[in-house]
């Protein structure tokens, strides 16, 4: 028996992260009940995004325009590039509104076993970008995992000859964190990268 459109919608929604068949049914029911306020705008928004979404050819961010809005923005500092693993990480940093520079999305990390090599990540393109005269610093904001750090070290080697400053994010006690609840790995990292009190930058 052919599935009705509603069933098909439920099945598709159930494949989203965080949703199962039961919650997808609830969501669909809710959408149908609020057709004008939710269902129609959602359908239009999804159709628009499906047509216009693309990956920025410069930084790897996703946006409806290429180059993306961040790369186009004249007000942003073009001398700093922040390297992140994934678009989600880029969004996380953007939410802080404390970073005025450009980004570079790698699209993953070097894997120890699965054969994700440098050629699978956008590392060559990053090296190409840093060779532009205006770039003076690359901030490596890969995750604080073994793979993330291995990737960061690899990139820092690749950039060794280019003359740009390579820095990485600090690792340590989270803001609002209590030492007693920290795992010993974080504490070790925090102790190693302690800094002088009262020192500016």
């Amino acid at each position, binding site marked *: 028996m052919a599935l009705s459109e509603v069933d098909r919608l439920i099945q598709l929604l159930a494949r989203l*992260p*965080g949703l199962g068949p039961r919650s997808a049914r609830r969501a669909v029911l809710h959408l149908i009940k609020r057709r004008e306020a939710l269902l129609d705008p959602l359908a239009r928004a999804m159709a628009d995004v499906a047509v216009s979404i693309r990956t920025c050819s410069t930084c790897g961010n996703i946006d409806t325009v290429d180059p993306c809005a961040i790369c186009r923005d004249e007000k942003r500092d073009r001398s700093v590039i922040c390297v992140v693993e994934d678009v989600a990480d880029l969004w996380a940093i953007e939410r802080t509104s404390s970073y005025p520079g450009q980004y570079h999305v790698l699209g993953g990390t*070097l*894997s*120890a*076993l699965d*054969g*994700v*090599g440098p050629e699978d990540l956008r590392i060559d393109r990053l090296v190409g970008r840093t060779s532009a005269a205006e770039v003076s610093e690359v901030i490596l904001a890969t995750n*604080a*995992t*073994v793979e993330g*750090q*291995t990737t960061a*070290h*690899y990139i*820092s*080697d690749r950039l060794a000859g280019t003359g740009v400053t390579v820095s990485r994010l600090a*690792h340590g006690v989270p803001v609002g964190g209590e030492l007693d609840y920290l*795992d*010993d*790995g*974080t504490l*070790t*990292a925090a102790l*190693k990268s302690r800094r002088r009190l009262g020192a500016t930058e």
Partner: protein
Amino acid sequence: MIEWTDDAIVLSARPHGEGAAILQLLTRRHGRHAGLVRGGASRRMRGVLQPGNAVVAHWRARLAEHLGACTVELVQNRWAQWFDDPERLAGLDAICAVSEASLPEREPLEPVHEAATAFLDHLDAELWPVLYVRWEIGLLGALGYGLDLSSCAVTGETDELVYVSPRSGRAVSRRGGEPYRDKLLPLPAFLLGKRAPTHADFLDGLELTGQLLRRHVLNPANRDLPPARLRLVDRIRDSSTISMHSDTDQEVT
């Protein structure tokens, strides 16, 4: 219900579904073992499930052949202190990757676990690459392809052993190996305990064990050395910080 609790080293954790992870462990008494960790992709668990970490694992399944569910408790975080040390991080990554690629699943090989623990505990030693090469030789031995460096396989000499036969893993002297020198692997002198290792020796050692692992263990299973192991060689080759000792008394082995 089958269950056990064992000391283990985390080799890798792959995300599975939304919140879970499939964990590969090198356990003390149960060999290389996999298990599903519920909530393994969570923020809390991600730090625990990093390669090289020492954990106590509790595994349970209804039947022995099932993947089973695993809970782990962190004993020691081994990698956080090597965050900023690309060479040692590469060593840690390589030992985990090589263990995962070459060890048979669920075959108890306690010496391999023991040696890996010793390596990770002594990663701060200056000559840690020696320990790494020694560990791979031990691994080959545990898998049944041990080296025999006591005498030359061709002439029976015990002096001037400079090659290893890739086929038998036996040492070959300079004289005995002359006709086959293209096919033989160089034997770094530090493995005979004769000389403190040099930078080139580390590379020869890694080449030796790498070739043997390929030939005997990985290629028959249609695999190659894992990328992390290849990157370790690149790291050591380019490294200027790995010391080249001239002091013979500083043998770590």
